[in-house]
């Protein structure tokens, strides 16, 4: 008994080390911008860089649009599948898993091939390119968003709720916006925060479609010539990720035992 607990603590120690050491190293590194002393100079420089705020804001916008479109696309679909088209359940679940099979790099390759010329020349315009990127992000977020919402729907017996609402004379719009969405609040929010976490630092798709306008490619550019700033950006990203995951845990009161996203 005692021996096995010691063994457990040993592994926790190793895991903690692996987790903490790179963060410590990065943090320490980010403080070394001024020769000889530790300072927050690198952070100051980052925060003073207009490009930082611009790319951050741009990615945040992309993320917000991704969340809105994802929710509007997935909630009604998942709801309708549970209510009226259970025979499509398998097919939809299969589709939502496809982003695992098609890595982001392949997906963006295909998107560029399809949408960079007639008959669908989306990449010709600024708006079109941005829209295409948002669409790509919706696909990336699909597995997590769908799973979160489907679990949420499973918890609230939508069929009975719908029938009760209908018997009281509610139409579809009322049902969807006054009943389904509010009851799925936690599921939607936790799916959204995960989407935010995925999109904010996304590099692969952004670098091919919009370049350094987005936060991920911007960070990458900084990394190529400014060492200390890149460390501070890593710390900022980490805090951001932590905040999103923390919000999810808070929302679900730790019931969401783990949120996972794919590799980037």
């Amino acid at each position, binding site marked *: 008994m005692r021996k*096995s*607990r010691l063994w457990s603590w040993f592994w926790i120690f190793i895991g903690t080390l692996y987790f903490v050491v*790179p963060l410590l190293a990065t943090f320490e590194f980010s403080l070394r911008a001024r020769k000889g002393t530790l300072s927050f100079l690198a952070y100051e420089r980052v925060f003073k860089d207009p490009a930082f705020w611009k790319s951050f804001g741009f990615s945040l916008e992309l993320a917000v649009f991704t969340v809105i479109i994802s929710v509007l696309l997935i909630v009604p679909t998942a709801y309708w599948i549970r209510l*009226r088209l259970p025979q499509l359940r398998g097919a939809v679940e299969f589709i939502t898993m496809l982003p*695992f099979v*098609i890595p982001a*790099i392949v997906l963006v390759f295909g*998107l560029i091939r399809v949408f960079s010329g007639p008959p669908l020349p989306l990449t010709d315009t600024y708006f079109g390119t941005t829209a295409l990127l948002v669409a790509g992000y*919706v696909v990336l977020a699909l597995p997590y968003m769908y799973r979160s919402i489907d679990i949420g729907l499973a918890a609230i017996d939508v069929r009975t709720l719908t029938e009760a609402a209908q018997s009281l004379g509610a139409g579809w719009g009322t049902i969807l916006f006054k009943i389904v969405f509010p009851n799925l609040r936690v599921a939607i929010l936790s799916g959204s925060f995960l989407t935010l976490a995925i999109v904010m630092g996304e590099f692969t798709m952004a670098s091919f479609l919009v370049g350094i306008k987005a936060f991920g490619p911007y960070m990458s550019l900084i990394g190529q010539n400014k060492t200390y700033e890149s460390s501070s950006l890593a710390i900022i990203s980490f805090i951001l990720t932590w905040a999103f995951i923390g919000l999810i845990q808070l929302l679900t009161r730790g019931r969401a035992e783990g949120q996972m996203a794919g590799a980037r």
Partner: protein
Amino acid sequence: MSNKADMKKASHNRGVSLTRPSKTPWLTWLGVAPFFAFTLFFIFLPSASLLVGSFQNNAGQFTLQNFIGLLTPSVVNAYWVSIRISVVTALLGGLLGFFLSYAVTLGGLPQWVRAALLTFSSVASNFAGVPLAFAFIATLGRTGMVTALLKAWFGLDLYAQGFSVYSFWGLSLTYLYFQFPLMVLVITPALDGLKREWREAAENLGASGQIYWLRVALPILTPSILGAMILLFGNSFGAYATALSLTGGFLNLITILIGSQIKGDVLLNPGLGYALAVGMVIIMAVTTALYYFLRRRSERWLRI
């Protein structure tokens, strides 16, 4: 609206009372139309386009030449490096993740350790890409903290020993940062599914702890462990941003190769690029299918 529908149904019923009223099926299907339209445009069309492209030559005629082109040494090497790094990080990450998960589920540690580990794992499995590469450069780069400390404390000069954070093993260590947390997240439910009664039944029948693990617990967990490791494999096989930011495209991974193909056709043959992508999707499809097969199997066991 529903009232109107009901009324329509009722009148319909009176008219043709013998057949079941058709509930305007196309209206029902309209509910999922946006989803299918979206996925058609942004998943199926791009995939199909790559698939078609992979069977065409520069003039747009059918050819198998692109797939034969996959056999050129540099391409084979890229696949091979990608597979190797995925296998290595899946195995190492899988082991570390498993032991961590074991520690917090069956290892007799207090509850807060479990909660902390799961939260950390959620964060770390999401912390990938550009910033992760920066972090490991600051850790294991030439002037990184760990590199310096190892030299100062143990006189161990990593770089003199041939190690580099930009190398295969450097990238593997970096990938492990999101691999083992993912393992923790995936395998913890399986370890939770091991019933206390199984252990007790085994002991009751005379088995030692070791025999219980060998004959009962490990066989029950095997599909879950394999499945999780396959998931880890796919996770690193598809990774691009981390590798590119870390090695600057130095390491010849399949994703990096595809990336440079998108940017500027290094292979001088777009068809070959599409074939690369298709090959990658096939590998991912096989691993994902295996994962689901194994997961189904372990669910069947763990539910009893």
